């Protein structure tokens, strides 16, 4: 048997992960990756099982800080720990349950529906700027600024400040999604967190006396009536919202549109029958979702696919591989805009299922309907180069489109 490539950032795997995922699913469904120093799960059944298993802990921040940093580093990055450790995505029950319930109310489908007008307004504004141009960069001219504008509006930050969010979110994403070539990524992330928090503190102080109709005011109101929450919880939560609602949506837009442009029959089908947009977006999530994987830590010893996993071991759940498991999806390597049912794991599953899923789905639907209607002749004119990341799946900009 050939030895397995342990370099998850190998250019061949990054550019086309499918053959690697297939090999792992078929031959090493629970694989110890010595280089990454953790287990890798690739079958739908195992990834699904892990996402629903309460013994699989989401707090990978504490073990990282405890075991991978020196005492000096721990002290230096105490603020980073404090912020990250309060993120609902890195919490386990019972702490997770309470915070999650608060957020769920803010992002429940009915609440998200009230944001429709705001989202439609941004989509129109951005695409109005495309009119009359022969080419655009999908990323720079839409996918990058659009979700940031939406999430800023939701939180209550002025539109002219949005450009500042990009740098902060980028520094944090680089730390969390394990990019390469970033020696100083902890320093950079911490500096971003300090600035970001100070900025949000300004918005917070403005709202102490004059609450507004925005999510920060709403969170402040919840916090005042809840002795378990601190003002820091409000600020950290807003940092998480900006971060989570930012690059993932950006990547979802870029990955789905470029996939469609490279699958002309499916794009044509959607132009003819826009009623399939909902299933097409789900297929975009399945096929090239913004996150290839997520991480858990085993809470105790357990057996997975005949392997003995020890308590404390890191586990990489590759949703990207599970999403192409032929045991779950018929003809999984084919992009089928009408696929239904489509129980992909791209928004995760279980108690950490993406809070922003209703918002992301709405943003995608509005944007793609408008995009296909207004620019029916668009074509991809730059090559697709995937960014080397372990968890994220993101295209290196620019993503040039010819419009006429």
């Amino acid at each position: 048997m050939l030895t397995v490539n342990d370099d998850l950032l190998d250019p061949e795997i990054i550019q086309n992960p499918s053959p690697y995922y297939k090999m792992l699913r078929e031959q090493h469904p629970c694989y110890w990756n010595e280089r990454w120093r953790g287990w890798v799960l690739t079958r739908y059944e195992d990834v699904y099982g892990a996402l629903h298993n309460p013994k699989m802990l989401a707090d990978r921040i504490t073990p990282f800080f405890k075991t991978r940093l020196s005492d000096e580093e721990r002290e230096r990055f105490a603020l980073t720990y404090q912020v990250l450790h309060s993120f609902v995505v890195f919490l386990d029950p019972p702490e997770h349950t309470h915070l999650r319930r608060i957020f769920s109310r803010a992002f429940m489908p009915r609440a998200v529906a009230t944001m429709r007008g705001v989202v439609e307004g941004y989509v129109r504004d951005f695409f109005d700027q495309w009119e009359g141009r022969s080419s655009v960069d999908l990323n720079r001219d839409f996918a990058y600024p659009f979700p940031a504008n939406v999430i800023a509006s939701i939180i209550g930050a002025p539109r002219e400040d949005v450009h500042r969010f990009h740098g902060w979110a980028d520094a944090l994403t680089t730390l969390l999604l394990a990019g390469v070539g970033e020696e100083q990524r902890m320093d950079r992330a911490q500096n971003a967190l300090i600035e970001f928090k100070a900025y949000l503190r300004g918005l917070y102080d403005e709202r102490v006396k004059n609450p507004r109709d925005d999510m920060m005011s709403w969170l402040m109101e919840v916090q005042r009536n809840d002795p378990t929450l601190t003002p820091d919880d409000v600020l950290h939560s807003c940092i998480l919202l900006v971060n989570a609602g930012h690059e993932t949506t950006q990547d979802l837009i870029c990955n789905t549109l470029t996939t469609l442009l490279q699958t002309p029959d499916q794009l044509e089908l959607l132009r003819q029958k826009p009623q399939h947009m909902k299933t097409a977006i789900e297929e975009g999530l399945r096929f090239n979702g913004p996150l290839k994987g997520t991480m858990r830590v085993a809470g105790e010893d357990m057996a997975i696919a005949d392997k003995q996993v020890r308590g404390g071991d890191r586990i990489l759940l590759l949703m990207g591989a599970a999403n192409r498991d032929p045991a779950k999806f018929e003809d999984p390597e084919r992009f089928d805009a009408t696929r239904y049912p489509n129980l992909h794991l791209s928004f995760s599953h279980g108690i950490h299922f993406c809070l922003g899923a209703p918002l992301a789905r709405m943003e995608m639907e509005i944007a793609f309907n408008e995009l296909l209607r207004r620019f029916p002749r668009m074509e991809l004119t730059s090559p697709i180069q995937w960014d080397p990341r372990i968890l994220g799946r993101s295209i290196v900009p620019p993503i040039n489109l010819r419009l006429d």
Partner: protein
Amino acid sequence: MPQRKLLRAYVDTSLCVGSAMCVSSYPDSFRMGSDGHAFYVAETVDESSALDAAELCPVSAIQLIYEEED
């Protein structure tokens, strides 16, 4: 408009993602099954909790069946 009566609530397992919002908010009405999907367990339907759980669900998987109007 006459008030319609809620007859039944159930979780559509083809939509449920196991976020457990219903279970953690209304443990008397919802339980988590071993397959990772929630299900409705209350013997008598409590309209306010069923309605709130349905709204809280991130994927709108909780279905409410009302009495047909005359």
